[in-house]
């Protein structure tokens, strides 16, 4: 088919590496062109420029990790005006949006579930800390709220004693997380991290301290975090499914290009951001499953693929 879909992350980041593989696989499996294109820096305007230039190059479908959950909408709207369908991938845009759907992780739910796992590991009570990313990222708000909500639901048994944000770069993250451990390491019982870098840095710090008392729930699949889970320094991590997102997303865009319409009455999930959410799968992985964590995700991907077309699209 003549579908040329581009997969555009927010910027260079290890999380999205699986998109490249997914794009290659989708290109082969569905006989389309699918390319993974990375903006040179993690900035909304760079991403916008990238997307615009991709359209000028003839790409006719776009899968975008929104550089800003609100700000990306105007670009997607322009794509739509120009006849280029798009969808939000990995993270969602805030409604109203021109994105056909959002296939990704419900960030709030993931943070909420992760915190619940942590609370369970703590035996239902204790003091926890939350390390997360840039405050200006709307997702960060959702995560802070979700963690707080999970804690509140214990009726005071669990208390979030500190939130540290804006630590998406490794050096400041190291500085602040260790300062936290210095000040309140004895007091805190659990740590939940909801961004990639803080998870990695916190895992390393706990390992350096040799601390297995503090329970930590991380996010994503960085080797450092996985290894720390295997070695007992980290309790578990909230996985996302980047490969599945890229693969299913490309498949869906091809179908839409070929005339399928997105159904209004599909089994959409509703999140804080959008009413057209498809969960690409979130899974909690602890020491027991860490060895073959990918199996869990492959299963989810296959499950979504099996019914995707019938569930979400109306093709003629």
């Amino acid at each position, binding site marked *: 088919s003549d579908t040329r879909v581009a997969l555009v992350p927010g910027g*260079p*980041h*290890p999380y*999205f*590496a699986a998109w490249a593989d997914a794009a290659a696989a989708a290109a082969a499996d569905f006989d389309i062109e699918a390319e993974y294109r*990375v903006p*040179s820096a993690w900035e909304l305007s760079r991403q916008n420029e990238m997307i615009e230039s991709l359209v000028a190059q003839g790409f006719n479908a776009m899968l975008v990790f929104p550089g800003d959950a609100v700000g990306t909408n105007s670009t997607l709207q322009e794509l739509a005006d120009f006849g280029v369908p798009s969808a939000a991938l990995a993270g969602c845009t805030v409604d109203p949006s021109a994105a056909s759907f959002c296939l990704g992780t419900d960030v709030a739910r993931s943070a909420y579930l992760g915190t619940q796992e942590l609370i369970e590991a703590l035996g239902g009570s204790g003091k926890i800390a939350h390390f997360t990313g840039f*405050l200006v990222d709307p997702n960060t708000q959702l995560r*802070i709220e979700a963690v707080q909500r999970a804690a509140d639901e214990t009726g005071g048994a669990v208390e979030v*004693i*500190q*939130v*540290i*944000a*804006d630590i998406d*770069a*490794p*050096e*400041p993250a*190291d*500085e*602040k997380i*260790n*300062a*936290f*451990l*210095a*000040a*309140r*390491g004895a007091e805190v019982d659990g740590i939940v991290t909801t961004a990639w*870098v803080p998870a*990695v*840095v916190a895992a*390393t710090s706990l390992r*350096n301290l040799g601390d297995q008392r503090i329970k930590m729930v991380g996010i994503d699949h*960085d*080797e*450092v975090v996985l290894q720390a889970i295997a070695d007992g320094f980290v309790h578990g991590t909230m996985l996302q499914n980047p490969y599945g997102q890229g693969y299913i997303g490309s498949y869906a865009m091809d179908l839409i290009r070929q005339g399928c319409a997105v159904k209004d009455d599909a089994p959409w999930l509703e999140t804080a951001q959008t009413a057209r959410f498809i969960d690409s799968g979130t899974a909690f992985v602890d020491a027991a499953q860490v060895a073959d964590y990918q199996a869990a995700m492959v299963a989810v991907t296959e499950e979504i693929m099996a019914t995707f077309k019938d569930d979400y699209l109306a093709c003629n």
Partner: protein
Amino acid sequence: MTDRLRALALADWFGLLVVVLVAGALLAFLQPAFLSTYNIYVLLLSFSLWVLVALAQMVIIAIGQMNLSVGAIGGLVAITFAGTMEVWGLPIPLAVLLGLVLAALCGLFNGVVTHVSGISAFIITLATLSIFKGINIGITEAQPFYAIPDAVKAFGAARLGGVPYMLVVPALAIVGVWLLFNRMVLGRQILAVGANRHAAELSGIRVGRVVVIAHVLSAVLAATAGMLAVARLQLGQPTIGDDWLILSFAAPVIGGAILAGGHVSVIGTCLGVVIVTLINNALVLLGIDPFFVQLLLGALILAAVMLNRWRERRREALA
């Protein structure tokens, strides 16, 4: 003895020292954990890294230029250091050497292009920032190198009470740079070039050579910081260095360096780093709501600068 004290009180970094002491005392009072061995260790760790970054910039400020590529060089060397050990299995000393050589080449490039073209280093290093960072991203595809040898990791985590082993490196650098600017001909020439390039030229100073050497030195210091960051983070992160720029200027300028060149203070720069580190530490230690962190950070920097300035004025009035 009183003479010594007087001289100390007249030193241009004395105000900063007062700021540091006051801030330290206040913090210790507000949060006893501030003086815990582990927190001291954490502070010294941050100091170790940031002071190298700041010195790397300070050397270039001294010649009246700016080096926007300190972070990019640090990052590139960091991933080279980690990558050559992981991919080629290079022994640690060789990898360190390779990193330093690479940095020297980057600095050489900055210096030579700046000097030969006569274009301001600001533009050249802005372009090379993009080049070095681009090579970094191109090689790593934004993926970290994980296989860091245990010896490096151990070095990054080892400590003697509150003192990290890592501190040795910046300590040597501080002494070296201090000697350079206060006791060595090359350092004095760097300052002369920074203060008045034309006059320096007329005094027979080889301006080109001095500029190039300063850039090489800056790059090597940045590289050292990059490799320490690898040891510290136990991971060859491609994003190492992304956040250095602002601090690299802030610390020397807080420390009394003149951006136009010709005057820098090594001790002042160190104190500048300490002040910023203390503020960051305080914001975590006192459990500040993340929404207020940025606001307070700025306000505290401003307060520190004003306090220092106020003391300077008093001194000027007295002198």
